[in-house]
């Protein structure tokens, strides 16, 4: 069911374009958005939320501030708008004939065939001259598929599969570009992908500037998901003794998402990224150097002095590790959604390996309802590894109260931007074990300005339970190392990752855009 917008009171100062995040999905990006909204009470914000389909989300997870003038929702799937009325299915009573190919179709062709992003491509996308009905049933679309795209993408593959993937790929694009975008002085997409595309087209149509903030790197995250996606069937290759060949449709989709990112990069006046590591990747992906600004995430200022004892021990009133079984003990916290990209499975396996050597008390804090089947897999794994006494799923909690109770925060994500979880842990003086993704290494080992502070945790390899287990064991056995890392964490967050720095950066950005 489509919920009505909060209110709509004319032009906003900034339209935030959000894909699968605020205000319906709790997480780091949503928290960041909420911080931004709260940081500028005198600016009017419009929110455009892009969701998968109506009914995907329940009520908002955040109290929407009063400076939000509009909350509009658009969907990639669901009822397909045809003319004035949305319909659940499109039948094809008539095929348009003899028409010149639409400019949007030309743009779609260029996305897949020419691999070039320019102003002409954006103008064609913004033309809005291709309806869903014409796309689905027109002769020009089929001719494009038949004469150019199929041979380019999957020359000997199942044509039926290619056909449906092509449709499924572009229906969301057409639907999103047909939906009205709130009127605003600045368009601010909080990712590339669909949000970046909608922002870019809105910018072209209105002549207003576009800012893009990338927390994670959308195209690379999609590529990772697509490499594992089960809805793309690989090709049985008997010549390869039954080992399937990767379907060219995976590359087809990856290329598409890369092009969406490049479209946003091309149109944006400013590209904001969270770390130097991500900046380098954006440059490699085609972003112009002069557009990129690094504005790390920030948290509210922490206490000026670090505690002299590890937080968990201070909370328990003990001065040394509590030895229950003769092994060192460690209280571990995971804060985040229980979803595949957080790779909680690796966390559980690592805990299973480490508990042979150390006593662990692991608390998994965060919602489990975003991917119930994955959450069930995690729970089953805990049970099968007999870790029920070690690992506890707490669900959503007030994490600010929990950080001081942890000896270490553990992240085993497959992909991250610049996790707010790590900064929040640092603010509580808690070191972090994290996988080498996104800006995690930079946050742990330091960048140009803060490397001298020393490491504030341990970096591990992705999807590697033994490496993660080794890190847990190392910190469990060495309380002084933990303490030193905790102090480095606190110093690091106070030096470089302060919320007021973020607020000032965006204020400057918005002001320069508005001017």
């Amino acid at each position, binding site marked *: 069911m489509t919920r009505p917008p909060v209110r709509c009171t004319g032009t906003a100062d900034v339209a935030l374009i959000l*894909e*699968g995040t605020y205000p319906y999905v709790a997480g780091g990006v949503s928290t960041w958005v909420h911080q931004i909204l709260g940081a500028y009470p005198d600016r009017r914000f419009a929110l455009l939320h*892009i*969701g*998968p*389909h109506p009914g995907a989300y329940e009520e908002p997870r955040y109290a929407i501030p009063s400076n939000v003038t509009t909350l509009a929702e658009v969907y*990639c*799937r*669901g*009822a*397909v708008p045809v003319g004035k009325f949305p319909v*659940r*299915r*499109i*039948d*094809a*009573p*008539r*095929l348009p004939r003899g028409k010149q190919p639409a400019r949007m179709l030309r743009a779609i062709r260029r996305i897949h065939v020419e691999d070039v992003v320019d102003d002409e491509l954006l103008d064609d996308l913004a033309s809005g001259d291709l309806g869903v009905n014409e796309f*689905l*049933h*027109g*002769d020009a*679309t*089929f*001719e494009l598929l*038949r004469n150019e795209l*199929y*041979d380019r993408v999957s*020359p*000997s*593959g*199942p*044509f*039926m*599969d290619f*056909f449906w993937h092509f*449709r*499924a790929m572009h*229906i969301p694009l057409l639907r999103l570009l047909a939906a009205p975008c709130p009127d605003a002085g600045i368009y601010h997409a909080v990712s590339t*992908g*669909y949000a970046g595309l909608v922002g870019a087209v809105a910018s072209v149509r209105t002549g207003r500037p576009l800012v893009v903030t990338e927390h994670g790197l*959308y195209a690379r*995250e*999609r590529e990772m*998901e697509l490499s594992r*996606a089960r*809805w793309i069937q690989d090709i049985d290759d008997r010549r390869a003794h039954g080992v399937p060949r990767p379907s060219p449709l995976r590359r087809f989709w990856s290329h598409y998402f890369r092009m969406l990112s490049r479209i946003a990069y091309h149109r944006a006046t400013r590209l904001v990224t969270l770390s130097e590591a991500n900046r380098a990747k954006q440059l490699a992906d085609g972003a112009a150097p002069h557009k990129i600004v690094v504005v790390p995430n920030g948290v509210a200022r922490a206490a000026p002095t670090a505690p002299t004892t590890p937080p968990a021990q201070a909370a328990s009133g003990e001065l040394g590790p509590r030895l229950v079984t003769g092994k060192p003990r460690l209280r571990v916290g995971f804060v985040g959604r229980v979803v*595949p*990209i957080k790779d909680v499975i690796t966390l559980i396996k690592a805990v299973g390996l480490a508990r042979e050597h150390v006593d662990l008390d692991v608390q998994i804090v965060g919602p489990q309802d975003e991917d119930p089947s994955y959450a069930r897999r995690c729970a089953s794994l805990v049970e099968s590894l007999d870790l029920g006494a070690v690992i506890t799923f707490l669900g959503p909690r007030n994490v600010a109260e929990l950080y001081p109770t942890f000896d270490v925060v553990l992240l085993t994500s497959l992909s991250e931007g610049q996790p707010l979880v790590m900064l929040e842990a640092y603010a509580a003086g808690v070191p972090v074990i994290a996988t080498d993704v996104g800006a995690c290494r930079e946050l742990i080992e330091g960048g140009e300005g803060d490397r001298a502070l020393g490491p504030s945790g341990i970096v591990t390899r992705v999807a590697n339970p033994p490496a993660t287990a080794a890190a847990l064991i190392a910190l469990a056995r060495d309380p002084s190392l933990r303490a030193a890392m905790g102090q480095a964490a606190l110093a690091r967050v106070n030096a470089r990752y302060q919320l007021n720095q973020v607020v000032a950066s965006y204020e400057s950005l918005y002001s320069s855009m508005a001017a």
Partner: protein
Amino acid sequence: MMARDSLSGSLGAFLTGVAVTSGPWLLTTLVLVLVRISAARSGTLAVQEVEQVITVVYATVIVLSAPIDIVLSRYAADRVYEKRRDQIAAPLRTMVSVCLLGFTAVGALAMRLAGFPLALAIPGTVLASIVAAQWLLLSAAGGLSSPGIIVRAFAAGAPLSVVGAYYLPGLELFGATGYLYGYGLGQLVTLALLLHGTMRALPEDEDEDARIGSAFREYWMLAAAAFCFHAGLWVDKIILYVSGVADAPIYAACAAVAWLTVVPAAAFLFVTIETAFHRRFRAYYAALHAGASLRELERLVAELREEVDETLRGTAAVQAGVTLIAVMSAPAIVGALSLHADHGVTLAWLLVGAGLQVVAVSATLLLYYFDFRREALATAATQLVTNGVLTLAVGGDSRVLGLGYTVACAITCVVSLTLLRRRMEGLLGRTFQSQPFASEDAALELGSV
């Protein structure tokens, strides 16, 4: 039978084709001819009025029930395809009931408009509801059960119609109306056997909540095409009768004879469609789902197009031969029917027209096969409009009676072949681009949204 690759196999296949495509109609015609012959021998002239009643009944029922029949046929075919045969029985019973009741009313109205006396109108009305239900079951049973059930039902009822029509007029209770009651009795037996055979072909567990109403909305184009097609077969006769053309009955009789000549071509079409054509058709659509490449699909489409051309050429060739023989034999046929020699010209025109029409019907059937509904409707509407207009334009001059029908059939032939050729050229694109896009696709879950 064809797979035996022998003369006997081929002959058997074609005779089966005759039985399936024309069996019921041939048996009915045979019965009516036998009724006429027995009445002529007994010296009873009242049989002419009985024949008129039967003609009005069949014309009314066939034209008005055609939309219902085709929708039910398509509904049943879809349920069979979806493996939901349990959803057929309840709607079928509903439609049989509707036909029996509805066409009682339609029949009564037709009898009144035709001005028949009550003694004939009553059995005529009853006959209308029986025939309507028969044709409804024919359309449903064709796909559900073996063609033998249909042929056996008509074969059982036909002798009873003949016997009844022979004996009942001799009884004082019936008099001349005995022809109708006797004929109707046999048709009632046919209806009962059709109903029994059809219901046996359906599963015992049925979905009693199944409804057919939405099928009329979805297939309204098919219904309109069926109406136009059957109306197109009768419009010239109706115009001539209503216009008071003296030779209208002669025209109708010659038209009936002309239609007999399409039996061999119809049988050929049936056998070809059920064998070679069907193999190509299935190969193409099976390849779609089996993951065929574009090149493979293009090759299969080309072969299918070739097969369509072969089917039409073969049908036209068979029909051309039969028409040629029949036209050359027209004088003899006219003599055998005790008609005036001038009517040979009418018969000749109608023979040529029927020959052209069967080619148009073949093309139309192929349009239906590919579900090109709009084109099938266009073809049927062309036949109806041109036949009506040209029959009116030609008028009742016996020298050109039948010319309007022939030219109409020629036009329809051209239209149907052109539309079919155009659609076949774009078959691959049409196959894909006509696919509806479901609003939800559970197979595609993009992780980002």
